[in-house]
């Protein structure tokens, strides 16, 4: 009985050790969400992105151009969200970056909705790749 208790105690300690090691090299999915701030953690070198937009004569956004993307980000997926008052999403678009030489750039012309330039207060970017 004493031997069995010793073995069980050792087994529990070993399991706990491996669980801790596993968690240190991984990202828990318990909350089912992933958030990130403006600080990048990408190895393709993007530290900040900026966009400009064109409008038609009615003042609706017809195109968004995103620049400042390092060429190393070629092949990654860039998503841009057009943000309105109180941080509301007005529309979004995404593309896979390609054809990059010294830098990458991307142009979007469809956002899933008609967006008045006057309602646009900013952009949100996400760059994801392997």
């Amino acid at each position: 009985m004493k031997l069995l208790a010793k073995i069980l105690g050792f087994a529990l300690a070993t399991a706990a050790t491996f669980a801790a090691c596993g968690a240190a090299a991984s990202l828990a999915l318990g909350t089912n969400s992933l958030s990130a701030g403006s600080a990048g953690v990408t190895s393709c070198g993007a530290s900040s992105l900026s966009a400009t937009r064109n409008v038609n004569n009615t003042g609706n956004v017809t195109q968004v151009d995103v620049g400042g993307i390092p060429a190393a980000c070629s092949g990654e997926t860039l998503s841009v969200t057009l943000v309105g008052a109180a941080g509301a999403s007005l529309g979004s678009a995404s593309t896979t970056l390609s054809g990059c030489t010294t830098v990458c750039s991307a142009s979007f012309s469809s956002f899933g909705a008609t967006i008045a330039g006057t309602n646009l207060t900013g952009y949100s970017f996400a760059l994801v790749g392997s």
Partner: protein
Amino acid sequence: MKRFALLLGLTLAVGSSAAFAATLNVSSWHVFAGTQTLTKPAACTVTGAAADLYVDESNAGSNFSTATFFGARAGTGVRAYSFIRFDLSTCNIPATGGADSATLKLFVSTAPGTSRTLTITPVTGTWASTLNWTQWLGLTLGSPTTTFTTGTTSNVSKSATVTVDVDGWIKNGATNFGWRIADLNTGSATTLISSTESTTNKPQLVINYEK
């Protein structure tokens, strides 16, 4: 000793699988997230044009840049078109900004007897304030931006939306060659508009913008 080895092996296997079953390995992914906030200052109003004039088909070699009016005239052999260009630099809008809306305000000092539709078209080549009818024929134009109706009442202000042109000129000031204003309809009519040389009611460009 054999029993101990068996238990140890089983424990290692269970411990490893339990640790990784609830986790996602992200070591092979790049993730970047960022934001850009736009500011919307108060509207910039440019009063008075950098250049405005009219050219007259019936005086093809003459220049009319110092009159207190410009305008548009239709009629065979007597057509008159106007050209107007604003200096946007006074608004200090960065090239990374853009126009949310832009309105050209013109004061019709003498309206025609019947209402006419005037067409505003961007000019795509450079012109000087010495422009005359003969020279304007060598200019190139873009697609018409908009139109406005004169009405038949004199001394009224008229507005035309020119957002798309001004937005483009904010981003690339070198392409700002202003507009041509013309009465392209059939028949004969004359509309006079107060020019920058007028003491009051000068042309205005009102720009709501972001940067």
